[in-house]
């Protein structure tokens, strides 16, 4: 079993090796001011497959990403957009006027952003009577709750994911779950999982630079029914 603190210690100890290892680096924390912030090495050829599935399900032809640049997610996202034929625009989360202008004039079909950012941005857009066709919200794994902002219109398509660390999706949605407009997920196919009481553990299924081995998730999950896609539906236990 690996706790988060143990994982961080291992990552920090591995820092000197990372420069010589062909891998893609992501930050080890959502908090850029974390004094223990280090790099999380992922497979160099890692592809954001869950994002591709979501954008295809949403039929996204133009995408605006409002994620913090330091998440290091631009390149994988661009690769997904190239694959599905969607043009990509990066919008600084602080610059809502530009984001609104992009939705209106390009026009932008799908907005990818953090759930917290979506709350403020959707309110801003509502004041201007602008709205995208779809939202793709990223929840932080260490967030106390994964709420869907009330300000997002039920008529707009909504997909969600939960990232354990920036750029590391652990809970994903299929086309069926997207339609439910609620915080129900599947565990990413990148991990095997087990639930023991109120604890949920994941282990990387592939041999990768820094595999997770029975890593305890910072939230508890409960199994629900089987989804139309064949996978088990997971819900967070508060």
């Amino acid at each position, binding site marked *: 079993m690996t706790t988060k603190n143990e994982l961080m210690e291992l990552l920090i100890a591995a*820092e000197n090796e*990372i*420069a*010589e290892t*062909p891998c*893609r*680096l992501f*930050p080890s924390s959502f908090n*850029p*001011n974390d004094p223990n*912030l*280090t*790099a999380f090495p992922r497979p*160099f050829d890692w592809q954001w497959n869950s994002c591709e599935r979501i954008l295809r399900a949403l039929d996204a*032809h*133009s995408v605006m990403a409002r994620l*913090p*640049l*330091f998440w*290091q997610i*631009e*390149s994988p996202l*661009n*690769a997904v957009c*190239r694959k599905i*034929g*969607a*043009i*990509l*625009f*990066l919008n*600084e989360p*602080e*610059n*809502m*006027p*530009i984001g609104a*202008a*992009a939705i209106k*004039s*390009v*026009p932008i079909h799908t907005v990818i952003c953090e759930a917290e950012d979506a709350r403020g941005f959707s309110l801003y857009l509502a004041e201007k009577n602008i709205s995208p066709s779809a939202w793709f919200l990223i929840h932080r794994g260490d967030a106390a709750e994964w709420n869907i902002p009330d300000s997002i219109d039920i008529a707009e398509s909504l997909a969600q994911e939960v990232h354990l660390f920036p750029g590391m999706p652990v809970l994903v949605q299929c086309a069926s779950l997207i339609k439910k407009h609620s915080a129900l997920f599947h565990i990413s196919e990148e991990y095997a999982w087990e639930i023991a009481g109120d604890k949920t553990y994941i282990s990387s299924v592939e041999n990768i630079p820094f595999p997770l081995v029975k890593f305890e998730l910072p939230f508890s999950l409960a199994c629900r029914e089987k989804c139309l896609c064949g996978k088990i539906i997971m819900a967070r236990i508060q």
Partner: protein
Amino acid sequence: MTFEKLQSLVARLTAPPAPPLYKKIYGVRGDQPLQIQNWGDWLKLPLLDKDMLLNIPFQERIFASAFKADHIRVSSGTSGKLPLFCPRTYLRGMEYRLRYHDFKKPILAFGVPAMPHWHEFFQHSLGYTPRVIVFDPKNAAASVRLARIAGADSMSLFTFHIPLIGEYMRKENINERIRFIEIAGEACTRAMFEYMRNIFPNAIILPFYGSSEVEDSPIGMPCHPITGEKPLAVYHAKTSHYHELIDPESGASIESRLGAEGELVISAYPGEPSAFPLIRYRTGDMIRIVEENCKKHSTWTFTILGRVAMDFLKIPGGVLRADEMERILRLFPNEISDEFELHRFEHTTSDGPKIEAVLYVRVRKNDINLDKLAAKIASLFRVNPQRTYAEGIIEGLYLPLACRPLNSAATGKKHKRVIAH
């Protein structure tokens, strides 16, 4: 670009399957392409500018499919105009960088001048493992820490990011590891160059001159790195470009002679795929010709003097806008009029180069405390939607705003309200 290539470009862009944009601008009817026969015909083609592009919907300005268009850029909107969204394909013609750096190790890169994924593509094309750390100016310390761990030895970003990165890299003890710096955006000043020379003693500094509207950036390829020799940054055209010089007031052509000054007009076509080929686009930049026929590149070279319309000036993290200052001054009708000059200086400090704004105002009373007025104005003057000038001072970006009577202004040029030094 040769005349034959320009001729072919005009014909291609004025006939199907090209979108009808240029046909409409040139008044071409039917499906027959426009054929220009000589330079006289070329010079009769209307000049394209940002205002024209703003009136053309984005979907009518995209010449490539979404599978081929790489991303969208937005003009900064600093001039007070609406933002212009521009479709872009991937950058080409950037091999000149290999003269100065090998790109074997990771690079710390902002989204300008090139998107992070493009840097990966560039490294991959050289046979190296692509490794890019995206620079996030809102989280500079975190970005630099990741760059340290990755082993980055180069960076590509805006000029005004440099002081921010410099201090964090010194703290992480990796500043001397940097061997290549590519800077874009505002021109590199002497103070900024000396700061970089001091903090990054082992780095070659290469300027990048691009524009959101110009897909086939850079607009100008640097003739040499910045070494301190004046003019600091000198450029020449890429082979996929044709550059012209015009009088910004009349639009008349200016001959490309040594010392000639004028607005740079660019025609640019990177080859297929191309999201927005440009024909005779006014860059809005004033340039001066440095050499008529550079020995190395067999074309004229130029240095950038500044913007044609100077109603705004870029500063780190924002813009000094004349219309914003006018709005603020009108809040003090009893003390001052709304007539002003706003001067921007750059000073060398122990923390690197810093901007100082000096505001010259027409006072209505003799007993006005200009220091207090300056502090008040600074607290109200927005340099970007999230920051006032006063907040920028607290953040260490700027020196305090100074206020002086307009009769002591340096220029006396009433038609220019924002002046760079």
